[in-house]
């Protein structure tokens, strides 16, 4: 499987690119942003240590100095406020959290100040801040290192929330997020870090608030978020073997959502499956389906997949059942199209294993 599927490959023909993995792409974005704009700085626990957040910030302190790349005390609440205050006073901070779960300690500042400042101060100030965070999975990440909390942030007007699914989008979105005048929650998935893509050497931006049609097929529209894009692409390959052709759309930005490509596609396929890397209750999947249904007068078939409605367990036997995978995704698609066929479909369990999972060996 090649994740180059998700890239606008035609535009890459003419510009110099390098094959980078997701982490290298993020680091490239940081390097270029720090180089181009003196108001950009990075802060967060451990970003200046020898490991540099899985390599994504490694060496940047040597290049740009401890005034612009620095660690913080374990004070997520105040440090978020400090980043917001710096942003309001003319800087462009990137506040880095090694796990998204810790954003729960930042909610007061993010929700009460960052999201609202531009509005409640009548446009007199704004908050050009990036909150970068990483979602974990497997190798015992468990209850408090694996949460994807994007729906909490999607609920709040004034925040932008992005979830790049590949290295190309990761670099372009990070540069766009840093230059965006609004607060942007930047969600990465740990299991995407070894995935590779051809990434332009020069700085470029991927537009925030723009969905991408990753592949086209007439039988069903599948919207997949974050690493579920990769899982769904694998599912699509399994479905091809069964003669089923699906469209996959990566929202890339989950708030504000760009629904047009989804609505257009569903108007043709009449079937929508949303695969989220999160729980379903009040989640992104519910929101996407609600918006499609509100926009249509036709009878549509809809379904959601995501985390099981439990806390994430650490033991592999239970964790495997907790997440959607290419087989459960493909099975859900077949059930929507042909329930009889689904009852007899016998996939090879090996097909649920993805390239990145085989490549990734932990520990974190």
């Amino acid at each position, binding site marked *: 499987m090649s994740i180059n599927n998700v890239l606008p490959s035609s535009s890459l023909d003419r510009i110099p690119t390098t094959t980078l993995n997701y982490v290298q792409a993020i680091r490239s974005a940081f390097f270029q942003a720090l180089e181009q704009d003196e108001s950009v700085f990075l802060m967060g626990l451990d970003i200046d240590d020898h490991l540099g957040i899985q390599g994504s910030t490694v060496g940047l302190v040597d290049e740009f100095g401890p005034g612009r790349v620095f660690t913080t005390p374990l004070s997520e609440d105040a*440090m978020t406020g*400090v980043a917001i205050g*710096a942003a309001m006073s003319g800087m462009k901070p990137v506040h880095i959290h090694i796990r998204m779960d810790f954003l729960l300690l930042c909610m007061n500042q993010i929700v*009460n100040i960052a999201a609202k400042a531009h509005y*409640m101060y009548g*446009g007199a100030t704004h908050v050009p801040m990036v909150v970068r965070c990483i979602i974990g999975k497997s190798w015992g990440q468990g209850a408090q290192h694996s949460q994807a909390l994007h729906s909490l942030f999607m609920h709040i007007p004034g925040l932008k929330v992005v979830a790049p699914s590949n290295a190309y989008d990761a670099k372009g979105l990070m540069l766009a997020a840093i230059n965006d005048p609004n607060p942007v929650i930047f969600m990465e998935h740990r299991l995407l870090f070894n995935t590779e893509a051809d990434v332009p050497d020069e700085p470029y931006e991927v537009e925030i608030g723009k969905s991408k049609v990753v592949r086209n097929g007439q039988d069903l529209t599948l919207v997949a978020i974050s690493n579920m894009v990769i899982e769904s692409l694998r599912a699509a390959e399994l479905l091809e073997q069964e003669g089923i052709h699906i469209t996959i759309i990566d929202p890339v930005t989950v708030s504000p959502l760009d629904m047009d490509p989804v609505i257009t596609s569903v108007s043709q396929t009449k079937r929508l499956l949303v695969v989220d890397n999160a729980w379903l209750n009040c989640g992104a999947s519910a929101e996407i389906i609600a918006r499609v249904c509100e926009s249509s007068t036709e009878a549509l078939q809809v379904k959601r997949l995501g985390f099981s409605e439990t806390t994430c367990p650490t033991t592999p036997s239970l964790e495997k059942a907790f997440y959607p995978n290419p087989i459960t995704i493909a099975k859900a698609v077949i059930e929507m199209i042909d329930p009889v066929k689904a009852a007899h479909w016998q996939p090879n369990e090996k097909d649920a294993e993805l390239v990145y999972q085989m490549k990734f060996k932990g520990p974190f």
Partner: protein
Amino acid sequence: MKKIEELYESLCFIRQLELKVAEVYPSDNIKSPVHLSIGQEFVSVAICDALTKDDYVAATYRGHAAYLAKGGSPEKLIAEMYGKETGCAQGRGGSMHLIEPSVNVIGTSAVVGTGIPIATGYALTQKMKKTNNVVVCFLGDGATEEGCFYESLNFAGLHKLPILFVVENNNFAIHEPIEKRWAQPDLSKRASGFEVTINQYKDGDVIELHDIAITMIEAIRNGNGPMLLEVDCYRWYQHVGPEKDFGQGYRSEAVAEKWFSRDPFVILGEKLAENKKQEIDRRVTQKVSDAFEFAEQSEFPKPSELFNYVYK
């Protein structure tokens, strides 16, 4: 003497303006909860007068005094309370969300303590940009109970940021006195250990407090790192609203009487001749009247503008 006159005029203006807010409030023209600073407005006056225009001030939801003392527009303040489009936040914020970038008033916030790290972030920017500016962060005694207060002191001390934390200690968090909230009644003991120099002032003399502020702000400007100044004061009115609430029984009238009898505004006025005070009073009354007139004549934002400012 000129300085005394200036401080008196500033204090007199803020006192009169807030009394007018209390007077007008029952008319329901003010479309915002108001937290009056009457009785403790001297803190803002004494401190802000020691700042330059380029210095920053962060204040609280009880922020009318700091906003005005730093040079915020009274017209825009009252218009904001009236919900008018000419308000400092175009009617989107109300009394608790004042801002004035032209005189470096950082936006005030209604969630207690949230302004402390924001002000610390402004101070970080001053350090990064190598400006000569100081940030003053006003907060109340209640806000010193929030975790972000200690986190901010630690970060400011660690990075030697140019910030003065001014704790206006009026003894109450809504209706709850410090005795029911603080294990240690001496704030300096709770706030020590962060490399933040701490001073305390208890006497309500505007001139003395002004002198202390000048000394501390100068020291911060000269690179001596963050400082904290705790000022004892007293809130004459309700936590929120236009009334005095001594009849409710949660605080002692005897204690209140002590504060009324040594009102910092009166003490400062005693240093001026009666005719000078009358001249200032007349000027101030006109300014207050102009501000309310401006607010009353301004328009409300149009419903079609509801979605402005969600994103920049």
